[in-house]
């Protein structure tokens, strides 16, 4: 490794010089290691945020060019025009996160404590579906939830769709192109992000704690509520974050499985940016989304008391 640019040491006793040089060299090592990667993140992650902030307060048009006019009104317009999409995004993402937790916890528990020699196989089965492109898998849900398909027929026969239609989750005895289909797709797509952190934190729990709880006459339910679940909190927190954050910005599920009534905010940002070419509006929308998500995440991390997570 070549090390240059060490600040020139003042002339000293020659016998002392090599030692001092070596220590300067050593002190610079971490900075050289960090330099390329951090530079990449600063230029292509942090700097773009600054550009976006400036874009969001510009006015103008594609033909005449955009100029910074501190037109904060765009933010107000974005909120008053697109608040239904914002609320919908947070609602869908929140529901999907809760469903992921409810569905993912038993599976993570199963892998950590009950799978025995099947553990690796089940883990492979959890990760492997990942490798079929997620767009292809989401399109497969179109087949599964199709009108007249097996799933819709069964739900109809059990009168489940009557209830969900009454709740406004489905329409006219169909699932595709309704909120239920979008939430189902979101839940499906982000499940592995919930299961893996849950599994990691459950796996760390010492099995003897369960025995100890049993010896102290705790029922299985008490053991779970007082021992297992609290100890798995780090996994619950990181799992819910890894599910909620990407789900709130996602528009693939809403576009492929939903209808115009189920549009999420990501969809709006994409349309404004790539089709309408209203850059200030798109930038403002994306900043609001970022602010809302970061705020919710900060509050959530504070409240769940695992600040060392970050």
């Amino acid at each position, binding site marked *: 490794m070549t090390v240059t640019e060490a600040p020139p040491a003042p002339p000293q006793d020659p016998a002392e010089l090599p030692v001092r040089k070596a220590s300067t060299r050593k002190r610079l090592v971490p900075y050289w290691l960090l330099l390329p990667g951090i530079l990449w993140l600063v230029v292509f992650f942090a700097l773009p945020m600054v550009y976006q902030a400036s874009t969001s307060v510009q006015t103008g048009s594609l033909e005449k060019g955009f100029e910074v006019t501190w037109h904060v009104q765009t933010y107000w317009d974005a909120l008053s025009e697109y608040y239904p999409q914002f609320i919908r995004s947070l609602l869908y993402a929140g529901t999907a996160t809760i469903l992921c937790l409810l569905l993912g916890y*038993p599976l993570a528990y199963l892998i950590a404590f*009950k799978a025995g020699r099947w553990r690796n196989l089940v883990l*492979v089965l*959890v990760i492997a579906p990942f490798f*079929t*492109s997620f767009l292809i*898998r989401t399109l497969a849900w179109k*087949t599964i939830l199709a009108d007249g398909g097996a799933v819709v027929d069964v739900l109809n026969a059990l009168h489940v769709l009557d209830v969900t239609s009454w709740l406004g989750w489905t329409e006219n005895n169909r699932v595709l192109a309704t909120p239920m289909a979008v939430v189902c797709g979101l839940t*499906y797509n982000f499940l592995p992000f919930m299961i893996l952190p849950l599994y990691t934190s459950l796996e760390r729990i010492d099995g003897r704690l369960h025995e100890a709880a049993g010896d102290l006459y705790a029922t299985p339910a008490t053991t779970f509520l007082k021992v297992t679940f609290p100890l798995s909190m780090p996994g619950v927190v990181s799992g819910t974050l890894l599910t909620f954050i990407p789900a709130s910005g996602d528009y693939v599920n809403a576009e492929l499985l939903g209808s115009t009534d189920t549009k999420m905010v990501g969809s709006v940002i994409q349309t404004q940016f790539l089709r309408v070419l209203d850059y200030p509006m798109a930038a403002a929308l994306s900043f609001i989304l970022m602010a809302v998500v970061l705020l919710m995440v900060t509050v959530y991390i504070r409240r769940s008391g695992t600040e060392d997570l970050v």
Partner: protein
Amino acid sequence: MPVLRWLRRHLIVIAGLLTLAYMILPNIVVMVFSFNKPNGRFNYAWQRFSLDAWTDPCGVADMCGSLSLSLQIATWATIGATALGTMIAFALVRYRFRARGAINSLIFLPMAMPEVVMAASLLTLFLNMGAQLGFWTILIAHIMFCLSFVVTAVKARVMSMDPRLEEAARDLYAGPVQTFVRVTLPIAAPGIAAGALLAFALSFDDFIITNFNAGSTVTFPMYVWGSAQRGTPVQINVIGTAMFVIAVLVVVAGQLITNRRKNSARP
């Protein structure tokens, strides 16, 4: 009621297996429909069995081109992100220096940001710079968002490494380079491999960031996205099935290798 008692005792196993079924169901559908001969442009309803798509996987225009482009981008993004990320991870675990907290948050933030926000802001940068959207802008974006994941994966491994092993190597007169190549790197390798695999999968499958920064360039996920509007060729299911099978084989092979190593390491 013995049935109810059995159900209660195995509640967790049953619920877990149901979730597993939910997760694998779409993959099975993708696989089954790769043998379909659809009536019309869309491959959503079963018509009849056919091997056509499997015998001619590149039979549709542009699909294999987009696939090879995605593979190239994923390869370069993996190399770039793994190299940069491994260096950062070593610096963060092995050294104490100022700005460590700030750097930790800079690495955490890309993972705590909805993808569409990153995608849109990166596009404003490229538009302001007047950059030509295409291969290079996609590659830059992919290295950027894979970086944090590689750092996290490698950091976990390096943190659990025993520094005394390197001291021992130095005591045995190994130079710094020799110590790194013969001792440090082999121990860190599983973490680096996990980071690289994650980067490859993330890059290959990314749609949102690519969609914003690709211009008119079409990667495989973008091809699939477009096909949802134009008509989905059966070949897409063939590629999806092949990816699934290859992934399972790679994981099983990895398992066999680690098992063999463990067995041979035993006295």
